């Protein structure tokens, strides 16, 4: 059943960010149709299309040439700054809303390095779910809602606690977990991870520079959901770590490319508030080794 009142914010947006031409009448038409049985989705769609149509018209028409689409009685009374503001506010608000959406709800990020090989390749563009771990104030690390907590095996995007750069790694240990590493072997809560040879076919997808290190794909399981990691025999990191207990509110993360990844072994534990989202799938992938030719088989593949 259709609720009694149409979305007030949508109506406000239309009146303040629309083209300025007969906005009241357009809003009235939409309200009338809404009361006649249209849905909220229809209403919102019409409002957004109207704002975009107005912004598109303003971009097509040079305002100073006299080709202004808005009747000009009101606009011509404004000073030049006011006129510019009135002309471009719809577009500016659209861009601002888009930035807020990308900051707090969902985003896609380009991966330039191979620290998550073989799961993520250089040139992949990942879809990041940014609200799964709690909704944040856009452009900040302040959480508005608690959301879910990261799980072992999640591939997360976070701001590095060392220098603030955005990194993507796999969650290995949660707050309170005991974690240790004996060379490449992972031990979580006293349980050794199991290792088996992974599919050699994955080696063909790696970049030439990585293949020169004679890498091996290994399937890791036991302590977190089964996944493939990459080992580079000539760059082996013989690290002896722990066991250490992950402090409350902190996470221990590793790159799947264990011998070429700056992760919790080097930058320390990652605070929960620094984790901004979960990588869910590859949306686009370009191969830097082949002049950025598309790797179409990776398009929309889940991680």
């Amino acid at each position: 059943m259709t609720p009694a009142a149409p979305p007030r914010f949508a109506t406000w947006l239309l009146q303040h960010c629309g083209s300025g031409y007969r906005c009241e009448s357009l809003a009235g038409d939409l309200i009338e149709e809404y009361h006649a049985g249209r849905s909220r989705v229809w209403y919102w769609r019409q409002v957004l299309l109207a704002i975009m149509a107005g912004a598109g018209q303003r971009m097509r028409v040079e305002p100073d040439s006299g080709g202004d689409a808005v009747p000009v009685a009101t606009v011509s009374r404004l000073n030049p700054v006011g006129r510019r503001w009135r002309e471009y506010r719809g577009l500016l608000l659209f861009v601002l809303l888009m930035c807020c959406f990308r900051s707090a709800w969902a985003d896609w990020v380009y991966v330039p390095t191979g620290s998550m090989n073989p799961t993520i390749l250089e040139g992949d563009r990942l879809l990041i779910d940014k609200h799964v771990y709690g909704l944040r104030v856009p452009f900040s690390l302040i959480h508005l809602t608690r959301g879910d907590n990261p799980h072992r095996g999640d591939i997360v995007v976070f701001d590095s606690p060392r220098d603030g750069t955005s990194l993507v790694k796999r969650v290995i240990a949660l707050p309170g977990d005991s974690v240790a590493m004996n060379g490449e072997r992972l031990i979580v809560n006293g349980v050794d991870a199991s290792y088996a040879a992974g599919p050699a076919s994955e080696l063909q997808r790696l970049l030439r520079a990585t293949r020169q290190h004679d890498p091996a794909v290994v399937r890791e399981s036991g302590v977190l959901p089964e996944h493939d990691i990459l080992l580079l025999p000539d760059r082996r990191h013989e690290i002896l770590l722990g066991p250490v207990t992950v402090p409350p509110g902190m996470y221990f993360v590793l790159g799947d490319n264990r011998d070429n990844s700056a992760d919790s072994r080097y930058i320390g534990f990652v605070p929960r508030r620094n984790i901004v989202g979960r990588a869910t799938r590859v949306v686009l992938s370009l191969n830097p080794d082949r002049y950025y030719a598309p790797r179409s088989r990776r398009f929309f593949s889940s991680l």
Partner: protein
Amino acid sequence: MSSREHLGSLELLVLLAVLRAGRNASGIPIAREVQQGSGRAVALGSVYMALARLEKKGLVLSQLGAPTAARGGRAKAFFHLSSRGLREVRLAHDTLTRLWQGIPELTGGP
């Protein structure tokens, strides 16, 4: 006096829809006429933008009705063609008809 205005395809559709809707030519009936005539859904905002361009070109005139509670206290805008608008529609029809004639690919059905 400017020479003939260039009409876009949506603008021509909207002019015809305003004529077809007659005295009832406000936003929703015009959008319905466009949709029924072209077979494609058209956003109300796009119709209003086309009407804004047509009014600026002097082809369409508008006036406000009385505000009603059903419309959240907002007045309905009614549109009708100016004499220039009517002339432009006739000219567009004549132009298209002339161009249509004598093309073998367009005769004898699909």
